[in-house]
Structures are given as C-alpha cells and as structure tokens.
C-alpha cells in the first residue's frame, strides 16, 4: 500500500503532526485500502470535532482551564534542585502569578546555563560555574578585625576557599586596590591589611569602610550569587541564583543558543518580544506541570499571545489586558469602578455592547455560542 500518497493528499485538511502519526499507525497495523480510508475518514472527523467551533468562547475556556488547577496548587515555594547546596526557586502559584502578571522584578531570578560540547562534562561544568558565580571579598574572608588603635582593618583569608576560586592573595589585593577608593590594601603575612588614606578617620567610618571592602567584587559575574552544576541524562548544565544573561552569554563554554533566563523581562531585553512570549509559555506551563497538574499548552499559548500581540508587554489584569477592554461597563465591573466611570464620562465614551460582561449587565444575549447569530426572516410582500 502506498500510505504516503494517501496521507499526502490530506495536506490541506490535517496538520503535519497528525498526518505523520496517521501514516505511522497505518504502517504498524498494515491496513488494507478500505480500512485505511475508514481510518482517514474517522481521523478527519475527530480532528474537526477537536477544533474550536465558530462562536466558542475559548478565552473563558483557557481562563478556566488554567485557573481551576491553579486553585489546587500548593503554596509550597521551596524546592531543592540538583546538588546538596540547592537552589531555592519560587514555584507553584506565586511563580505562576509573577509570570502572568509580567512583574518587573521577580522573587528568585535564575538562569539555566547550557554548555558547549567541549565543556559538557563534570569538570567543564564546574569550571564554567566557577567563572560565572560572583565572589565577593566577604566570601573568602575567614575573620576580620577593626584595629581601633592604629585605625586600620585586618582581614584573615581562608586560603582553601581562595585556592578553590583560582585566586591568590596578590590577586585579591589587586582587585581591592582597583578604582577610586579611600584606602590602600596590602599583604601582611597571611592576612590583608587595609590602611585608610585619611588618618583622622572616625571609628564609625572605619566600620563602614570595612563593610564596603567586604562587598568588593573579586571574580565572576555580578548578580549571580549561586551556580549549581547538575546532570541530566549525561548532559551537564548550571542552574544559577540571580541573573545576568547578557554577561553570561559571553562566558567561555556557555552555549548561547540554549541558555535562558527565568526572568521573562530579561529575555525580552536581550532577545526581544518573541523570546518573551516563549518564556511566558514555557515558564507558565512548566510551573503548572511541576505541581503534577495537566493543562493543555494551547491555553497557555493564548495567554502568552494575548500578553505580547502588540509587541509590548501587557500583564493579565487591571493594568494590562483587562484594563484595555473596549467596554466601559466591562472595565468598571472588573476593578476600580469609580475611576473608569469618571474617566469614561469625561471623555464621553461609547459602549458598543459587543462583548460578554456588558451584555450580562444589561441582560441582553451575550454574543457567544448560541447568542452569536440571529435568524431574521422577511416575508415576501
């Protein structure tokens, strides 16, 4: 049997995925012509039934399909990913809300860093992680003393940690003495001595200076406080806490074609609105899936599309999609009623009454489903 020819004829009616599956099954079952035609007929019918019908309120269906499982989501936020250190990432309902709300700052920004083939092994991954993770002076210090007599600061350095970071004391002093500063750092035995330039410095100022020195950037990429190496089916990757996508993409060994940030707005800044849409889709669906819930990705697609159709980010809610509804009554019934009514009356807005909520308010047929069409009959005169 030439199944391929039969299936190829359906190009106009069925999508590629369905056609391929159809062909596969036909071959598996080794159908005769009659059977194959029957299968095609049934498939076409099923596909037709599975599509939305004209007038179906798929927006409401999507909203219900996402929000009903969301009510079952636990408020559990913590999750240990990968190694013993673990990266705590916001999950569940709070995560879903911050994605859909298009928050400017998200609670726990993180990145999934993928590696180029040469670095796709444990050592390579660890190497990259070391270069990504931000190290501050405070991270390598084991003890610090403020010498009130000589008005100076002494910092003991954990040499093991230092070694782990591929740094030595000279590197540290070099980094500390970089840029404009009010002190001079030098090595004194195994410790680092910080001598203020101002000899009449107050004790309080000295304390402040100490905090500043401890926060001094030594190595890695700013903003990335943790980098955890994980392995999945022989493929290595790095999960980070804190994001800096632009910089990380330039690090040696990082695969810039796969590496993503969990902060949708950062993705938009670096890659544009299409990437933003995909991040919303991916993160939203992933969050629901992680909770053991099953929501068809098409519902999430609608949400992501609604948020990005203008090329600008629109949140679901008062300041985004819902706030831009055409109808005055619909907006007023949603939130901040008085403001919408006053603004509408000042502008002299007209409500065309062609959507759902406003027609429910005035008790007219909602132009959806059975209310979408009218039958009119004009008798012959």
């Amino acid at each position, binding site marked *: 049997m030439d199944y391929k020819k039969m299936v190829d004829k359906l190009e106009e009616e069925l999508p590629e995925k369905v056609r391929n599956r159809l062909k596969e099954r036909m071959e598996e079952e080794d159908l005769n012509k009659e059977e194959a035609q029957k299968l095609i007929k049934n498939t076409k019918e099923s596909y037709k039934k599975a599509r939305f019908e004209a007038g179906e*309120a798929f927006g409401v269906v999507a909203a219900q399909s996402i929000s009903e499982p969301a009510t079952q989501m636990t408020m559990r936020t913590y999750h240990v990913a990968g190694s013993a250190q673990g990266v705590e990432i916001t999950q569940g309902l709070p995560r879903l809300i911050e994605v859909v709300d298009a928050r400017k700052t998200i609670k726990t920004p993180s990145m999934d860093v993928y590696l180029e083939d040469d670095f796709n092994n444990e050592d390579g991954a660890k190497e990259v992680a070391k270069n990504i993770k931000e190290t501050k002076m405070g991270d390598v210090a084991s003890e610090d003393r403020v010498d009130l007599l000589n008005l100076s600061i002494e910092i003991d350095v954990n040499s093991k940690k230092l070694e782990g970071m591929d740094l030595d004391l000279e590197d540290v002093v070099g980094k500390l003495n970089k840029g404009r500063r009010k002190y001079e750092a030098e090595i004194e035995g195994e410790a680092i001595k910080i001598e203020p330039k101002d000899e009449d410095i107050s004790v309080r100022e000295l304390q402040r200076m100490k905090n500043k020195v401890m926060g001094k950037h030594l190595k890695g990429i700013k903003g990335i406080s943790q980098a955890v190496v994980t392995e999945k089916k022989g493929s290595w990757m790095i999960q980070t806490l804190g994001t800096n996508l632009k910089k990380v993409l330039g690090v040696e060994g990082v695969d810039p074609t796969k590496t993503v940030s969990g902060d949708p707005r950062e993705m938009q800044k670096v890659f544009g609105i299409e990437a933003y849409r995909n991040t919303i889709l991916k993160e939203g669906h992933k969050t629901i899936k992680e909770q053991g819930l099953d929501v068809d990705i098409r519902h999430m697609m609608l949400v992501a599309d609604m948020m990005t159709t203008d090329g600008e980010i629109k949140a679901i809610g008062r300041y985004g999609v819902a706030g831009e509804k055409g109808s005055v009554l619909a907006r007023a019934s949603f939130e901040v009623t008085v403001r919408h009514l006053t603004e509408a009356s000042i502008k002299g807005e007209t409500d065309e009454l062609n959507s759902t909520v406003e027609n429910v308010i005035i*008790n007219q*047929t909602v132009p959806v489903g*059975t209310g979408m069409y009218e039958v009119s009959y004009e008798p012959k005169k």
Partner: protein
Amino acid sequence: MSDVFLNGKFLGTTEDPKEIVEEVREGRREGKIPKEFNVRHNKDEDNIQINTDTGRVRRPLVIVEDGDPKLKDKHIEKIDEGEMGWNDLINEGIIEWIDAAEEEDLLVATTEEEVTEKHTHMEIHPASILGINASLIPFPEYNRGDRISYGAKMIGQTLGFYSANYPLRADTKSNLLAYSQTPLVTTQAEEATELNKHPAGQNVVVALLSYKGFNIEDALIMNQKSVERGFGRSYFFRTYDAEKKRYSGGQEDEIKIPEKDVRGYRSEEAYSQLAEDGIVPPEVEVEGNDVIVGKTSPLRFMGTGDFVTGIQNRRETSITVRHGEGGVADKVLLSENEDGNKLVKVTLREQRIPELGDKFATRYGQKGVLGLLEKEENLPFTKDGITPDVILNPHAIPSRQTVGQMLEVLAGKTGALEGKKVDGTAFTGKTNEDFKDKLKELGFRSDGKEVLYNGETGEKMEAEIFQGIVYYEKLEHMVSNKIHARSRGPVTLLTKQPTEGRAKEGGLRLGEMEKDCFIAHGASMTLKERFSSDEVTLPVCKKCGIIADEDEKTGKAMCPMCKESDVEEVPMSYAFKLLLDELKSMVIYPKLEVEEAV
C-alpha cells in the same frame, strides 16, 4: 536589669529577676499571696510578667522539687479515704495552677518515671494534656492527630441530653436526643465531666462492609428497624417570642385574634389554630407560616392630621412559624419582661427521625451522611441473628488511619458481651491484645471478624466481616434544617431580584463563576434566561436616550427631558435601570442609543 510588669503595666526594674520569680512562686505555694498569681521570666525580652487578672486559661500541675514529685502515695491514700480533697492539695502546695505564660518557663514531665532533677512539674495524668472534648475520645494515641481534632470538633456538634430541666427551659433553639446512652468504651474524662450522666450518642452494631453502593463517599447505611426502635431519633425545640409593646400616645400592641379590618389581615383559616386568647394551645400541630400568636400593632407612620383610633389604623404583626419548620406546640409561657410588658413565649417541638442526608459521626472524626435506610430483613446477619445497625464503608479507614476506631470495635464488643464498660483513656497502654483473648473466651473470633449471611439470598458471604460496637453521635446538621428549593417567590424591593437565603424563601444564586461556565459552553440563551429574574421592559426616548416616564393620565410614555413621546420599548435588567439612575445621580448622563427592533 529586667523590667517588671504587673498585668501588663510597668512596675519597676530589678537587678535580680530570679529572686522575684522565686519569691512569687514560693509565696503562692505557701499561701502568702493569692493562688491566682502567675509569673513568667521572659529571658528573650528580659522582663518579668506577673499576671493576676481574669480571663487567663490555667491548668493544674503537680509540683516537682529536686526531681521528686510532691504528690505522694500517702496523699492518694488520704484522697481515697475522703480525708483530703482538691482544695487541700492546692493549699498544701502539692498542685498549682499554671497559666500559658508561666508554662513557658517550666519543664513538665508527662509521667512519674520521666521525672528528672531538671523537671519543675509533672502532669496529674498524661491524658490531661488534652482538652475536654479531645479527652472524651477513647484510644486517641492510635489515631492521627488531625482526626482527633476533627473528632473533638464534632463532639461539640452532637445532639444529646443537654440539660435535665429542658421541659422548663425556653431556649431559642435546642436539640434533644431521644434514648441517649453512655458509651460502652469510655474514658476517665467522661466520668470526671459527668457526661455519662447526660450522654450524647448511642452504641450501635457497626459492620465494615460495602453494601449495594449506597455507602459510597462516607455515606452510611442504617437499619430501618433500628431507626424505628429509636436510633438517632431527636427532638428539635424552637421558642418564639411575642411582646406586647407600648408606644407613645398611650397606644400598645394587642395579643388576640386580629379582627378582619386590621391591615394585613391574613384569613380566617390562618388564625384557626389559636385559642380565644390569641395564642396557640399546647399539643396543637402547626406548620410553617402558621400563626402561633395573634398580634396587632398601631400603624407606624401616623401623620398629625389623620389621627384616628380604630381598627382600621392597626396592622397585623402576628408571630408565625418559620418557613420550612413546624411541629407541635410544646409549652406556652406567659410572663412579663423587664419593662413590664406582657411576654408570650411559645415553644414548638418537632420530632426528627433520621432521614436520608442526616449527618452522623463516630468519635474519631469519621463523619458521614445517611445514604440508605434498609429493611432489617434485607441486611446481612450472623449465625446468632445479629444484624448491623450501621454499615460503614471500609474505604473510610485506610486513608484516615483511625486505628482507634478499630480498637473501639473490639473493646465495645467485649464490653457488650460482658456487660461491662471498657476504659479507653489516652496513654493507658491498652492494645488489641487486651481484647483478643477475651473475645475468644466469649466465643467470638479474636480478630473481631464474623461470618455474615446475605440477607436477601441467605448465602454465606465470602469474606468475614469486621463487626462490633461503636459509639455513634448524631450531629446537628440535619436535612430538614437545610432543604430548600424555589421556583417563583419573593423579590427584594430595591433590585426586584429574588431574595437571598432559605429563611426568606430565597433563590439560589447563579454567581460570577457559574456565569463563566455558561459562556464557556456557549449557552448564551440559557444564560439570558437565568439572569432574567429582574427583567423589565421600559420606554426609552429615542432622542435623549434616557428612560421615559409614564404619564398617569394618558398612560403614555413621555420623556422627562424633551417632553415628547417618541420612545422605544427596551427590555433590560432592572439592576441596569438602577445603575443608570445612580449614574444620573452622580451627574453622569448615560445616553442609550436605541433603534427599532427587527
């Protein structure tokens, strides 16, 4: 330096907080200062709180000094002989009352064996860590904690013999369980609280069995004959008040059968249940909305001009039985209230026989509604001819882990066979082994299972069924309190929408989310019909777009703005008309653009 507070007020500071705390405790124990003093040294905030005020929850603990409880065998002997009482123990400084704050400073041992040098106090009994309701549950240590919480909560909802003088009382609402029994498996707390003198439940034979599918989702199946013998039967009492109020101008209410000319007169039949004095006599049967006290009042808004006394100026204010309730007039009480007004209280009594949907529970938080009342002859029976009173679905057990209830079945069975109560107090260390041998001695299987025969076919059942005696409680949530339906009915004045709530014969709200479901299904026309409860058709001026008035003389609609009557009849919800009115009152002009209907 520690701050010292007395009842939350700053008193002063001290260098030696320990000394003050010790002094208060010593003084309290020696009787130098009142027993109501409690002291706490909060080390985190470095202050001392001494509390003597009312409203603190306190509980008694045995004092331990240097690893030695002060309560000795000699005291217990004396208590047994009646030479010593509770107050003596407190006065002698053996037991003291501790409040929640002071407890933070203490180390309390649960048993005597546990006491070490470090301990300051000891529990009187390990079970006394439980509250009153929780301590009424036998074998609680075999259950998950949440089940005990649910069980304890439900004990508060059980019907029982709440008061011995109930015939004399006029409670607004009360329930009384007929034939209440003390539990066969009991606890020491049950004796101590004397709940065994006015119990709240009944001991019944329970089989753990799936039966015809009528006990799915925690429903229970009951033996019709057991119900007819009085299982779960209760009485519901409600007292109605009528006061003969006095008003300014020397007018007052009248309690009597209203005369025909009174405004709001019902019908002659409506007053037929009343005696000559206008009050329903005892043992007369009444239904919902029947008049039980006939009453008239003077009109409320009387203008100064037409001050006329007479029947026409009185209105009907009779007391009627609540919608959906009924029963028999139990007692009528005539009295006077504090203002010297005549007061009539009529108590109605309604018998409540278990019906489908009534709620029952065991003491382990295993609640369920009645799913089927099965004839006794159809129920499975044992070789001795025992049929279960209740059939409980075995699926209720594994996910909830109420092992205590399983133990109660065994314990209850031995108790019933021996004619003895069984003690199930918490932490007394009883296990199923305690009942196994006894059951065997009494001629039953040691695991509590029994061979049952199908009541309809007489065939032996393949599996042995776990059957025994469990204490069942009837809860106050009964179907007859909740059943409600409406087709047409009263509407509210303002919105013309149906009233809300069962008492007002209200409608069932189709809410925001339900509306969304109709839309998701594309059922617009159904949705419109459901929301049409307040639909009105109003004339709208084609020119001005506002709702026109109806001219009383001509009956024609006329626009109040342009004084013309070029209108279109528009159907809309009355709520929308109200919205338009409110917008107008806020000086917003909502103009409707209307066109002729096709």
